[in-house]
């Protein structure tokens, strides 16, 4: 009881510290200079319809590479902790409905995921969302049959291939355009604004991110499903 009072007091202090920030926060009516630069550059330099994508993949591309690395480290941690696969479980059989629906929906969900990460530069979506959607398809399969075994070498191959290719596209920027152009999408023709084959290397980079996120999260789900 005394602990809860102390915790409440500490949180009250935290609230008091944050209070001026919330009370005096004035919402802007205009974009900041940096953001409007990003919006204008997304139209003029990158030919990308989705400004969020151009910020993630190009303007903050190095950050995204770092985020993908953090994701990889988390997956490696899960794989390290849950290394030993238990002998096959004897769970309750999942219902007929789930089994049939998972076979029917699996392909559709994968297709939607691929659509979302290949159209990341045009519509809301992108590699991270598409990758997570692909993982839900595999989660459905595991829910329908807990003892399902995935082919780990293919998962690892997809993951390492997409990661290595992502870095290589970045290095191509240095090679083909010059210094200060790591991850510059202009190594490929920029195409016509608003079309699928536009925005240079952005769709390719985002597809690689999608494959990498999808295969990594599938590995996590597979490891946790075994426990």
């Amino acid at each position, binding site marked *: 009881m005394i*602990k*809860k009072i102390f*915790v*409440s007091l*500490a*949180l009250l202090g*935290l*609230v008091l510290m*944050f209070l001026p920030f*919330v009370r005096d*926060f004035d*919402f*802007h*009516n*205009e*974009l*900041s200079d*940096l*953001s*409007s630069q*990003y*919006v*204008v550059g*997304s*139209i003029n330099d990158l030919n990308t*319809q*989705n*400004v*969020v994508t151009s*910020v*993630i993949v190009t303007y*903050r591309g190095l*950050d*995204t590479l770092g*985020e993908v690395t*953090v*994701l990889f480290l*988390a*997956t490696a*941690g*899960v794989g390290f*902790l*849950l290394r030993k696969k238990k002998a096959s479980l004897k769970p309750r059989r999942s219902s007929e409905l789930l089994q049939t629906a998972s076979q029917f929906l699996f392909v559709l969900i994968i297709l939607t995921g691929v659509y979302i990460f290949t159209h990341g530069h*045009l*519509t*809301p979506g*992108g590699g*991270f*969302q598409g*990758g*997570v959607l692909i993982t839900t398809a595999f989660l459905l399969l595991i829910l329908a049959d807990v003892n399902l075994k995935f082919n780990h070498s293919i998962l690892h191959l997809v993951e390492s291939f997409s990661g290595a290719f992502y870095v290589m596209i970045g290095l191509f920027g240095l090679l083909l355009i010059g210094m200060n152009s790591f991850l510059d999408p202009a190594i490929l023709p920029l195409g016509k604004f*608003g079309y699928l084959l536009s925005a240079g290397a952005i769709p390719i980079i985002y597809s690689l991110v999608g494959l990498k*996120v999808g295969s*990594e*999260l599938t590995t*996590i789900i597979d*490891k*946790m499903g075994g*426990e």
Partner: protein
Amino acid sequence: MIFALILGFLLLVIGLYGMLTQKNLIKIVIGFSIVDTGTHIIIVSIGYLRGKTAPILDGAVDLANAAKQVVDPIPSALVLTAIVIGLAVTALMLSFVIKLYQKNKSLSIDDYQELKW
């Protein structure tokens, strides 16, 4: 969106309270998850501009004057990656919990005295 900002801070405080008072390891992870969501809502609400549309330059936006019609794209971009990272970190914490439970057969934090001082 002042409401979203307040809601975000409320979630943050609720999550922290849960993390500090709960004894069950899984409930602590859930508290972390709530803090995570609260932070995302705060960041997105900071980027909101009244009466503007999403930063996707399709038919709804006039290209010649695009910077005056869209909300801030940077907070959305930051939150987008943070959500996936939060998912992976939550998975990592849950696998720690699974390992601890397998070793000591207990989910209560009181049974883990090794790091107490």
